[in-house]
């Protein structure tokens, strides 16, 4: 969409500075966000993106400097005051009432009423007008809880629009979304801009920022590195700006496994919930990428191999030995380790210390009988944390206090301690900052170099292409394509992932 960048400033920041307890998080930030544009904001974790957006949204107050909205100098003391000036934030964590309808959620707290009764017809009529203005296709009476996340975000956006918002801050809106949903949200962002609203987009996904934003601002250590038209930037130039140095490459060098490497994992005709007769092998030292749409059976396949879900047919062999049991503990004993998709829900004990999280799956290593010997436990924990480059952290602290990237590294440390033969990493870099991402790639590659068979599952096709020696594409629980060498391209993966005639209208949008 060729957006003509208007020069009409919507929000203008002058010399904004902010400190927390002596730590300066923003210093002398000058920024102009033009009306009707999508303005991208990128930077590493801790660069000050969120603080900056919170100052605009009225969640934080700047220590010094000026915020101007529509040319008027403002000082917001609460998000409500910011909303009064048309500024609304769509947070990562959605705040919908799942049991209420879409329309009821949009007008929650501002329902048209007569004598205390909600006027349902008026409510619906207003909703229809609002949704069509924004160009959203949402059913007014659908239960909010039954919607997919991307549609729930639309509900949140409509709620903001219904309160008169014309400046929308989106903080990592696609972090929790599948590829298809992310595409749908991109459409939403574009239609918001097309209808004259301004969007401030904060995202870790640089390709997303480049394709959506008209202008990009790079933040590093609380300072603006530069603001430029996104057509003048590339992912490489953004990363360089964010890190202050060139990242030699996002992905480590690929070392192909020896041609005669034996298979460490053999999956034959595996059938389980969501998996329909899948066969494949992974050689020692090989990194195999598993691509496919969300719901195609990627995570289901991982769980079926790991024993997290029950397989009904087929066999799994590690180093030629067949798995007889069907539980994660059995798979672990045979040397399979799974880094699950959601570290918070399936991986970590957030309130427990880092140490306990690292050693959870391998306590046998340091226990005599049932008694845990703490000295080797501490020593080994520090050693594997060093391997995954988590340093300088007290291992007694709860794992919840770590950043997303370091939490994920703790999951890898748990895996390293287990010394697996087969390492399955499901979305290894979801919600992980650029710096940690490279460290995680290094861990995966180092494992392969030492002869571990690695299976990388990712929605990020570039990640799959950048890491894998070979790519499997899964659809409807079946491996439908195996791509290696020059056939490993984004186009081939997408073609295989979508090959079948889509059954629903939703998939059409994605294909465009």
């Amino acid at each position, binding site marked *: 969409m060729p957006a003509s960048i208007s020069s009409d400033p919507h929000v203008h920041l002058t010399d904004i500075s902010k400190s927390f307890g002596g730590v300066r998080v923003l210093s002398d930030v000058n920024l102009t966000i033009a009306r009707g544009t999508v303005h991208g904001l990128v930077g590493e974790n801790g660069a000050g993106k969120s603080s900056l957006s919170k100052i605009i949204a009225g969640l934080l107050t700047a220590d010094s400097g000026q915020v101007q909205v529509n040319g008027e100098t403002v000082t917001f003391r609460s998000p409500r005051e910011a909303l009064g000036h048309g500024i609304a934030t769509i947070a990562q964590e959605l705040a919908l009432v799942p049991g209420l309808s879409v329309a009821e959620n949009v007008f929650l707290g501002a329902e048209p009423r007569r004598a205390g009764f909600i006027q349902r017809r008026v409510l619906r009529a207003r909703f229809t007008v609002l949704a069509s203005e924004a160009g959203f296709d949402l059913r007014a009476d659908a239960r909010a809880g039954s919607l997919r996340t991307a549609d729930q975000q639309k509900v949140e956006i409509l709620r903001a629009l219904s309160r008169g918002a014309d400046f929308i801050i989106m903080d990592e809106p696609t972090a929790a979304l599948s590829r298809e949903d992310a595409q749908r949200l991109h459409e939403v962002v574009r239609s918001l801009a097309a209808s004259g609203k301004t969007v401030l987009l904060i995202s870790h996904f640089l390709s997303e920022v480049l394709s959506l934003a008209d202008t990009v601002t790079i933040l590093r250590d609380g300072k603006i590195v530069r603001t430029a038209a996104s057509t003048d930037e590339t992912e490489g130039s953004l990363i360089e700006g964010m890190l202050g140095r060139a990242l030699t490459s996002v992905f480590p060098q690929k070392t192909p496994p020896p041609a005669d490497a034996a298979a460490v994992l053999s999956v034959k005709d595996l059938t389980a919930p969501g998996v329909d007769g899948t066969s494949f092998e992974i050689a020692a030292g090989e990194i195999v990428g598993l691509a496919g749409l969300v719901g195609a059976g990627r995570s289901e396949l991982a769980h079926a191999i790991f024993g997290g879900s029950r397989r009904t047919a087929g066999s799994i062999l590690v180093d030629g030995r067949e798995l007889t049991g069907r539980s994660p503990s059995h798979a672990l004993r045979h040397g399979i380790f799974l880094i699950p998709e959601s570290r918070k829900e399936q991986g970590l004990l957030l*309130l*427990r210390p880092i140490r306990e999280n690292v050693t959870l799956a391998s306590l046998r290593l340091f226990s005599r009988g*049932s008694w845990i010997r703490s000295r080797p436990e501490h020593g080994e924990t520090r050693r594997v944390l060093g391997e995954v480059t988590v340093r300088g952290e007290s291992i007694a602290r709860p794992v919840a206090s770590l950043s997303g990237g370091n939490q994920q590294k703790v999951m890898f440390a748990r895996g390293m301690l287990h010394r697996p033969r087969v390492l399955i990493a499901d979305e290894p870099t979801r919600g992980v900052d650029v710096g940690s991402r490279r460290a995680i790639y290094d861990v995966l590659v180092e494992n392969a170099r030492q002869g571990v068979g690695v299976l990388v599952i990712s929605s990020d096709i570039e990640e799959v292409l950048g890491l894998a020696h070979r790519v499997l594409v899964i659809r409807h629980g079946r491996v439908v394509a195996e791509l290696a060498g020059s056939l490993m391209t984004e186009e081939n993966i997408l073609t295989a992932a979508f090959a079948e005639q889509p059954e629903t209208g939703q998939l059409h949008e994605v294909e465009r």
Partner: protein
Amino acid sequence: MTQNIPQSTAPAEAAGILTGRRPRFAKPPSWRSVAILIPFIVLFVALSIGSGPFLNPDNLLNILDQQSATLIIAAAGTLVLISGGIDLSVGATYALAGVVSAQVALAHGVVVAIIVTLGVGIVVGLANGVISTLFRINSLIATLAMSFVVSGIGSSVSGGNLIVLTNQPSFAAIAQTSFLDVRTSVWIALVVVVVLALLLARTTNGRYLYAAGGNAEASRLAGIRVHGVRILAFTLSGVAASLGGIIDTSRVLSAQSSSGTSLTFTVLAGIVVGGTSILGGEGAIWRTVVGVLFIALVGNGFDLLGINALYQQIALGVILLLAVGIDAWSRVLRR
């Protein structure tokens, strides 16, 4: 309010992992874990000043003797709560243990009585564990239902009568023997509490209890048999309840099937006041000990100061609400 939000959220990101600086809410358990000690010490000092007889060793040992059964049951109950369950059948099991041990002791002697009664506790605890894990019935309901079943069995064992053991000196010896000027009831409680505390803090199963209660799915994927450790916790709770029943029967030399009605709630109150989360995954046995003794001190204080026992119950309710409320508020502030 707006002043608080930046203080607690933004520095987490702002300070960042690269600089190695940590926001100050990074170590939440530290103050939480000692929080119960403050009111306990304040109350202890206040009673020492306000009441002459309080600091008398006889009074203090008497409190411990009275609380021995509660301490044992609450220590095991802490394991259940940490593992993500709750055991509402301990009172009924305690009463059943009382009447079973009394009846068997009258017919077959004390040793057989102890063995049979502990066996009954194992059976009840195992049943609780199996029903609430393998049969997937919420442990709140499972153990509530079990408490009715167990109470019914207790009534039928005793025939609804008070069973008197005053002519059974060997039964009295279980809890009433003095060793180093301290009664065996207290010694037994001490041993059980220390063993369970070590189990929780220093063994793999203890670690797995925290894991099962903190995040069951993550535990399963880490190869932990979540059902297994929960069944273990319920079984220990059943055994502890029956041991408590034996000890109190030995202390008062009588048993009746209705004796445990309020015990379940006293035990839970002690655990929760100590600071163990009813949501699972957090807690410690020493805190439960402090919580139980804190409630006991309140009762003792009311007795010594001659205040109507009526107010004691009201005070207990208020303390419980305060304990849970402070815990909930501290979580909110930490966010």
